[in-house]
């Protein structure tokens, strides 16, 4: 699984296809670049299934940061995202016996977390959405004379998304965040969302179209000078 944006704790353990350049494996035991024993997700899951709570706590520490970032982008709410992350790990714990080790634990966990986030989005009342739209504030960009590329830093990306993501459906949000922001492959996004690759591409296409339209209306700073008028 290629996840270029995943957090540092998880990225080394997600990819089964990632070449082992620095780490090594002797007699089934993985070693890190400094010779320390590295437990992978499957080993910790097996220990957790046998009742080792500490092993599960390590899985939570390894994956909660990345899952939180994804869920926070889908929900456009940092605090609510932590609640969803906690619920996802609890649900995963309750269903641990049903986890199929042939699949990546991350994909399985992200599927649980994304589904919870989508359910939450659907349950939000229109009144809450209206309140949020009314209280949002315009992003203030530093150095308006500079080019858009030079201004586009990392926090800015999340701030802009937070203000525009309301125009997307829950499925479009999830697909766009997983694919465009987290860098998952189409097949992985399809697995997380439980739909076909074609549906994922369609969600991405529609999301990009809507975001492009909103960016032109609300953030003309990102348009070429000729289009700003």
């Amino acid at each position, binding site marked *: 699984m*290629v996840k*270029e*944006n*995943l*957090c*540092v*704790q998880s990225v080394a353990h997600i990819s089964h296809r990632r070449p082992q350049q620095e780490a090594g494996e002797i007699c089934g035991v993985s070693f890190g670049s400094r010779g320390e024993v590295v437990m992978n997700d499957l080993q910790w899951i097996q220990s957790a299934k046998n009742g080792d*709570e500490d092993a*599960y*706590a390590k899985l*939570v*520490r390894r994956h*909660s*940061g*990345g899952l*939180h*970032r994804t869920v926070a*982008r889908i929900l456009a709410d940092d605090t609510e995202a*932590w609640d969803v*992350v*906690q619920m996802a*790990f*609890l649900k995963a*714990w309750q269903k641990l016996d049903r986890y199929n080790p042939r699949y990546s634990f991350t994909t399985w966990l992200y599927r649980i977390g994304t589904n919870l986030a989508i359910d939450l989005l659907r349950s939000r009342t229109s009144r809450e959405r209206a309140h949020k739209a009314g209280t949002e504030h315009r992003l203030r960009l530093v150095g308006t004379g500079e*080019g*858009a*590329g*030079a201004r*586009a830093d*990392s*926090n800015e*990306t*999340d701030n*802009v*998304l937070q203000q525009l993501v309301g125009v997307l459906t829950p499925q479009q949000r999830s697909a*766009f965040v997983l694919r*465009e*922001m*987290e*860098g998952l*492959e*189409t097949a992985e996004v399809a697995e997380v969302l439980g739909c076909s690759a074609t549906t994922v*591409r369609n969600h*991405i*296409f529609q999301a*990009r179209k809507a*975001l*492009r339209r909103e*960016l*032109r209306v609300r*953030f003309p700073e*990102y*348009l*070429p000078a000729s289009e700003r008028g």
Partner: protein
Amino acid sequence: MNCGIFREMIGSYVDETLEEGRRHWFRTHLRECPTCRESALREEPSLLFAMAPAAPGEPEEIEACAVAVMGRIRQDRLESRLHRRRRPWLAVAAAAALVISGGIAWRTMVGGGSGTLQPVVEARRDAELQSSPPTVEVEMAGEEVRVYQFANEADSDTAVYFIVDPALEL
């Protein structure tokens, strides 16, 4: 050289027709080359989101999440254990309560007077004197304070426990 290839790929990237390996290279170059980033954003503003950060999250928040999840798991486990153990005890207790209340009602109806209740009250006092006092334990778990109240001294598994959050404002 790379920048020329990058610009040719913008359309394919947006159309989702780029092979995954090339897509990965495109995204890396988008982040690393300010000139290409500038021109790409002019052509397709939504590429802004491909530069989202990979920040792993604050360690304190991750630790707080782990503590909360594990606390809840332990609580659920204890609750389910208590639930399983309590069931037969509850059935016996309910049956005993029915017999006692039925007996009291019958005696009241037949015999009448407060004197008939006296033996029951005395029996209850005797039982209270004979039973051992409940065992209470206090445990510090991270920032939490847990107060356990065990059913009796002989059974260290059956307990009700409370988690006291020190940050809670009363």
